[in-house]
């Protein structure tokens, strides 16, 4: 399974094996990673699963759809060029080694 690393705003790092087909959000929620709330359950409706993707991992990701782009305008922590909603990041085998940073706040 691809290994995904989640680094909190305080710098705490956790690396988790997440099944292909699941999302980066699900990998966090199902393994008790703090810093990802996912209030709407992964439906691209609430922007509380916001992450900053490490620059080196950005080329692994598919471009975002219109709804993710719109929803990112409503994040509680500032949107940056590497901001994504982790519920929209469906894991493929190439995601192995993906590193994301959770923001200071989601709400």
């Amino acid at each position, binding site marked *: 399974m691809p290994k995904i690393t989640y680094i909190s705003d305080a710098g705490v790092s956790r690396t988790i094996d997440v099944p292909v087909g*699941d999302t980066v959000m*699900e990998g966090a*929620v*199902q*393994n*008790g990673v703090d810093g990802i709330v996912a*209030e*709407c*359950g*992964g*439906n*691209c*409706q609430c922007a509380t699963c916001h992450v900053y993707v490490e620059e080196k991992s950005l080329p692994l990701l598919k471009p975002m759809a*219109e*709804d993710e*782009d*719109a*929803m990112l*305008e*409503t994040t509680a922590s500032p949107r940056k060029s590497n901001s994504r909603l982790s519920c929209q990041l469906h894991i493929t085998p190439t995601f192995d080694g993906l590193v994301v940073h959770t923001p200071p706040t989601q709400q």
Partner: protein
Amino acid sequence: MAVVIIGGGQGGFQIAASLRAEGYQERITLIGDEPHIPYQRPPLSKGFLVGKQEQRHAELRPAAFYEAQRITLVTARATAIDRLARRITLDSGEHIEYDTLVLATGARNRLLPHDNVFYLRTLGEAAEIRQRLAAANDVVVIGGGFIGLEVAAAARILSKQVTVIEGQSRLMTRVVAPVVSEYFRSQHEAKGVDILLNATVQRISDNEVLLGERTRRPADLVIAGIGVAPNVELALEAGLPVGNGITVDEYLRTPDEHIFAIGDCAECPSLYFETCVRLESVQNAVDQAACIAKAIVGHPAPYGAVPWFWTDQYDIHLQMAGLPTGFDQVVTRGDPESRKFSVFYYRAGKLCAVDSINRPADHLAARKLIGAHATVSPDQAKDESFDLKTAVS
């Protein structure tokens, strides 16, 4: 100090989670009557039915979360509230004492007076429908609301023959304008769904549904989604006021200062509509839960979140903001032919709701506009060169 929550759905879970996030240290007991840890219902009528999502995807948190957060999960049905002694009775005969009680008892499906009909609300029901769907050829869905249409879409995705039977003259009558109903009818028909409007079921047998003398449809699976009734009995028997739901004030409190009610089962004053409203949505359950958690830790504030809803059918993503109830004017932004458009609802000249079909930016602008009690004129709404975001300052 102890908080007891009756109801292990989205709202019940969220109160427990929000209380801990707010730093609440005392005992939290979450009582649910289903044999599962808390899960979300929206996927059950969408990805779960077509096999794209499993139970673990629906679970709101893993089992370890509750242990780590010291949230005691109890699988039982609460049978009585003793308000004087501040304790509840469970069907096991056990008693649990509370300082604060939250009723998040949800709602249950309305039933038809027919046998051989399946209903979808719980994970158990969804799992059974999913299994039967796999073996079925002809599926009849009774009810052209959100649940019925989502089930119809799932069944078509699985290549079943699908008929939708709706008693009203259009789909989703209770919640959307005719232009939106019509769009969804055309999209379902284009996918091959047979939609019967103004239709009433007379009889359901093992292998067909009879609508009238000449109208019948083969059916090896009949699923009904005809709305829900709030679970208010526990509150009623405890002497709490009940209207179209357990009556609470703008702080979501019943007249008993130790008892709150939230979510599908509760009716509360709305900042966005003149009367009390009872809403059945994830947003409502989650935001009301967060509001109560704040009140319990000493920061009460009136509940005032903008209502929003969504439904996914095939690749159509409908997002709704506000409450269109009683609208008297509707304008459309964008061309339905382009498969991306929004509908603006006005009541007495004021914007009250916006439905967006595959136009997420409009939806988010609408949430802000309605939340700010701002408005855009019908002409501005229609004009796609007018930037909705500029109307909220």
